[in-house]
């Protein structure tokens, strides 16, 4: 038997950033490991520059995500207006955004950001290395009820629109934990869980069904939050039926 901690992730908009270079800021079609562990860190109050605690979080916990509703990707045209850095240096009075805008010689940076709309998923973490894992799953679930920092779905402008409702479930496989969790799943708006769902998971856990369909490389393994570096990991994909156990 293994313990799993499950959280519901829904918001009208989310942004699970992939590799971002230059003006294109794409999003994954599903929550990333770094986004979910980031939420765990936010709930517990672990800061980005606390390298040791972040590393233990990264090493200690396994991650899986089940997509209940894929949603739609939209592209946002985003402009950032700022004052030219050379004039910023010369001006002592530029202390607020209002000051900056009143300078007049602003420059604009453009970017395109993808947002995932209408996406509903369930993320799941478990302890994969008991030595690194600083917090029990029960402690994590409790911290989600009274978090230290605001939670968000990948981007700070994307707050969850449902309590994440963290639960710890004991089960003999990942699938059975997920099935138990979504039993009586209620989005409070008549949302129906589909019979077959997409499941993404990683090595080292009893999945409770036959082999996965495929394996992908995904760069969302946290190397360093303070330097904002991530490394590749293998993510397995399967379609599973959740209507029967």
């Amino acid at each position, binding site marked *: 038997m293994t313990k799993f901690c499950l959280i519901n992730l829904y*918001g009208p908009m989310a942004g699970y950033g992939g590799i971002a270079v230059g003006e294109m800021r794409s999003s994954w079609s599903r929550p990333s490991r770094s986004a979910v562990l980031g939420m765990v860190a936010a709930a517990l109050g672990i800061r980005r520059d606390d390298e040791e605690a972040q590393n233990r979080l990264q090493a200690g916990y396994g991650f899986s995500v089940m997509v209940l509703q894929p949603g*739609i990707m939209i592209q946002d*045209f985003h402009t950032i207006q700022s004052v030219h850095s050379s004039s910023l240096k010369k*001006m002592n009075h530029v202390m607020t955004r*209002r000051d900056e805008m009143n*300078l007049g010689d602003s420059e604009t940076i453009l970017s395109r950001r993808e947002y995932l709309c209408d996406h509903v998923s369930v993320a799941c973490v478990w302890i994969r290395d008991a030595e690194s894992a600083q917090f029990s799953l029960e402690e994590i679930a409790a911290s989600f009820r009274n*978090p230290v920092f*605001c939670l968000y779905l990948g981007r700070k402008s994307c707050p*969850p629109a449902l309590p994440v409702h963290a639960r710890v479930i004991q089960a003999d496989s990942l699938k059975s934990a997920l099935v138990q969790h979504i039993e009586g799943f209620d989005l*409070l708006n008549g949302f129906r869980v589909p019979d077959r769902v997409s499941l993404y998971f990683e090595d080292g856990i009893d999945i409770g069904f036959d082999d996965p369909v495929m394996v992908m490389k995904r760069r969302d393994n946290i190397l360093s939050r303070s330097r904002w570096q991530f490394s590749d990991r293998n993510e397995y994909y399967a379609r599973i039926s959740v209507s029967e156990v």
Partner: protein
Amino acid sequence: MSEFIQIHMLASYPPSNLNRDDLGRPKTATVGGTQRIRVSSQSLKRSWRTSEAFSDALKGAIGIRTRDMGVKIKKALVEGRLLSDILEGKESGVTRERIKDEKKAHEWAVKISSHFGKIEGGKEKDSDKKSEKTDEKSNKNPLSHKQMVHYSPEEIAGIDDLLGRISGGEKVSDDDCIRLRSDHKAVDIALFGRMLADNAAYNTEAAVQVSHAITVHDTPVEDDYFTAVDDLNQLDDTAGAGHIGEAEFGAGLFYTYICINRDLLKENLQGDNELSNRAIEALIRAASMVSPSGKQNSFASRSYASYLLVEKGTEQPRSLAAAFFKPVSGKDIYGDAVKNLEGLRDRMDNAYGTSFKQSSRSMNVIDGTGSLTDIISFVLES
């Protein structure tokens, strides 16, 4: 565990184009499978933090809005009088050592006032006799600000104090000038954060989370086909419009969600509880009264929030956007939106065992219940 202040807001906008994409269309989002018009989080934050409502609320109601502070500072130094007396137009006597060297006084005035806003600059007019009158009134005075600047009573007192030290011959450093405004700086950054790629030491995690505003109902983006007439066109062989074009717009009732992490805000402000409370008040006032300025000249779509629900507590914050997952339809969009919002809040409290309702206040302008003052005093009482 932290204390969170959650603000749920409904604001209705007439036809407008507040926040547009690269093609000039209003931004949209798909929610519940239907199209909604959207105002992005960054657009909202920008309009609030650059608004006068925001800076005024932070500075307190009374202050002086002027372009000519530099001129007055110089006058105070040269005449050896108190700056506050000069600003109030009092006939007062000399209270300090006079700075006889006008050039020096001018330099000090430049140094101090340029910390508050860009000044015109340039050479000072050489003949004081000739420009005696224009010295204080002319827009071209090198000591005038390029834009109006609001000086708070504290800032004026701070400058006065500094002037006293200057005329007393004390050494005054750049840091002393910068300190005149350090409170203000802290609030802006403490609320909305800062990220400098060059220097992580200056990074501040924002204490406020702002969602994108979305309409609560299915909203089309409409086209306005317009023509501009050439007034000199006499309907001869070149009859027709001088210009034709298309402008896209939309109208709707928007839901916005704001979450303030009070503990983080206080931490960002070095534990200053009073300043943190003022920051919260300024944010609530700006958020409910300031609209993004996009295309105001064509649409004049300025709007105040019609409904505000504020919740205070340590439970996990959540937006109530799910209330509009199913688009509001029917004749009474506003009434239904409020009903759905409060209904979802109650049902969530039941389903998840939370108690947001017990610790909340609301203001409904259409029904005429509640007020911003009530809400702010509820938020600030501990």
